[in-house]
């Protein structure tokens, strides 16, 4: 199974627009949106939901007011400041509860329940590009990477069932838990950057992250014409780390126009920008390896 994961470190570099274009260009694939916090790929792919389900992850403490004697032990043992005491009545601020169970274990009255925590919803959908796996985390929930792991497992399952050997995944910004989870078993991590101070700075951090997990990566410079100096700096950096640069794209409002049409940039009448994206997709093929026999 081959999996292309598109990440960027910095947000807004064009990850999702490019992932949508790859989804359009790849012949047989399963599409996956791993940005479960602020997903956008569905705005282009327009999925029809086939199946969905609750995403339960970990637990949350709940104080049973009838059994609670207001001894305050829970508040003392909670490392997250999640227990509130309002006039002797103790409650859990679920947004701050880490689900560690310490208060449950130490409550002398066994007055604290520990139900499953509902964190979001996962979806299995069909799109004009093929099957798509996606999700929406509920606002304020911990983005621990568990939902990302679940989506990746579902995408693999779907691909196997359908005899497809490519997964194209849109990742999340940052370098923390959800991003780390999105990288697991990736064949290639495509890093989308831009020639700005933030773009280069964040690229350095995601490159280090890929090296930390010993994953092959490649770089795509979007909005490449914004600043020649930073573009050169990105090339120098990539050379020093032995990372291929698979292409450049200009700062082009066509990306936004396509987004407003609800299309991938390669859909519709051919534009110079679309042609460049096609070329980049072709450049990625050798790095992704040959399709396995199915």
């Amino acid at each position, binding site marked *: 199974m081959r999996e292309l994961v598109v990440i960027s*470190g*910095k*947000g*807004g570099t064009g990850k*999702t627009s490019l992932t949508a274009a790859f989804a359009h260009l790849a012949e047989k694939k399963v599409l996956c949106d791993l940005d479960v*916090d*602020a997903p*956008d790929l569905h*705005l282009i792919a327009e999925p029809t939901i086939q199946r969905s389900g609750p995403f339960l992850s*970990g*637990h949350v403490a709940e104080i049973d007011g009838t059994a609670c004697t207001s001894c305050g032990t829970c508040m003392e*043992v909670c*490392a*997250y400041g999640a227990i509130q005491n309002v006039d002797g009545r103790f409650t859990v601020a679920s*947004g701050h509860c*880490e*689900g*560690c*169970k*310490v208060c449950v*274990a*130490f409550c002398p009255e066994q007055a604290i329940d520990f139900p499953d925590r509902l964190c979001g919803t996962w979806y299995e959908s069909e799109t004009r590009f093929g099957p798509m796996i996606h999700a929406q*985390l509920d*606002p*304020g*929930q*911990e*983005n621990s*990477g568990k939902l990302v792991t679940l989506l990746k497992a579902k995408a693999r399952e779907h691909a196997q069932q359908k005899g497809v050997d490519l997964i194209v995944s849109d990742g*999340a*910004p*940052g*370098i*923390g*838990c959800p*991003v*780390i989870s999105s990288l697991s078993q990736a064949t290639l991590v495509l890093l989308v950057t*831009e*020639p*700005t*101070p*933030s773009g280069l*700075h*964040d690229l350095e*951090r995601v490159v*280090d*992250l890929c090296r*930390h*997990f010993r994953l092959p990566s490649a770089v795509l410079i979007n*909005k490449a014409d*914004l*600043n020649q*100096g*930073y573009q050169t700096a990105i090339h120098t950096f990539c050379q020093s780390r032995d990372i291929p640069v698979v292409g450049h794209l200009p*700062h082009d*409002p066509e990306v*936004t126009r396509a*987004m*407003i049409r*609800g299309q991938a940039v390669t859909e519709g009448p051919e534009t110079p920008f679309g042609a460049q994206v096609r070329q980049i997709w072709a450049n990625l093929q050798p790095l992704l390896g040959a399709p396995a026999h199915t």
Partner: protein
Amino acid sequence: MIIAVASGKGGTGKTTVSAALASIWKRPVLAVDMDVEEPNLHLFLKPESVRSEAAYLEVPVLDKALCKLCGACAELCQFKAISLMGAHLLIFPDMCHGCGGCMRICPEGALQKGQRELGVVEAGITSEGIPCLTGRLRIGEAMSPPLMGKVRQRMQAMAEQDFRDIIIDAPPGVSCPAMTAVQDADVILLVTEPTPFGLHDLRLAWQAFHPLGKPMGVVINRAGVGDDQVQAFCREKGLPLLTEIPFRRDIAEHYAHGGILTQLDAGMKATFEDLAQRLERMACEGQGVSHA
């Protein structure tokens, strides 16, 4: 007064707006970068004489001589950071969330306090005298909220010293890290762009932050690049549209050079001075409401 600059979608211009606001803020101000995964504010404010301090999470360390292999710690741990494998108790510090339950529950006192490095907290000051505070997550470290907690402690200590206002550059998204970053704010400033992605993520941000009951306002960045759906959404929700930053090549290039927007031209400076005044008014009105 604390202003948190947030957005659902990444790359809409949170850092651009934070840096510009800090640069023209009338009263003493502290600039805080809470995007510890990808901190960028320092690239624009360029603090000097930066002091870096490592931040740690308390994790258990096993004293084998005392452990009787009862397994109580492994049973309590919800994060698989402790495993009882036959006659071996194994600790996986990377998995630990620092709840301290294992140390508390061990009847033999066999688990002692150790540390895992989360990253660093950096403090410096710009040539204009604006103190800057940043958290920087260690590469490979999965959890950002504990480090954000350390930045927050430091922020409160620094601001209390001389009653400074605070501008917080929040991480993108609407999950736990973003909520952690905005919890202390008097006003939440949402930065978006007039595109379908921008609108969708603004809606997510509104859903997440609205229940906090804090005053919120919107800045549209790259105005003119897309459509007018964001304006329509703001009207529908009664979200004040505080300012627009036009989609202009010179602005994008100025940013790409690491420039602060208020230094581009007099118009931009006036735009942000006006924004700062509006934010101050919102903060005062917001406090008025909460005291009423």
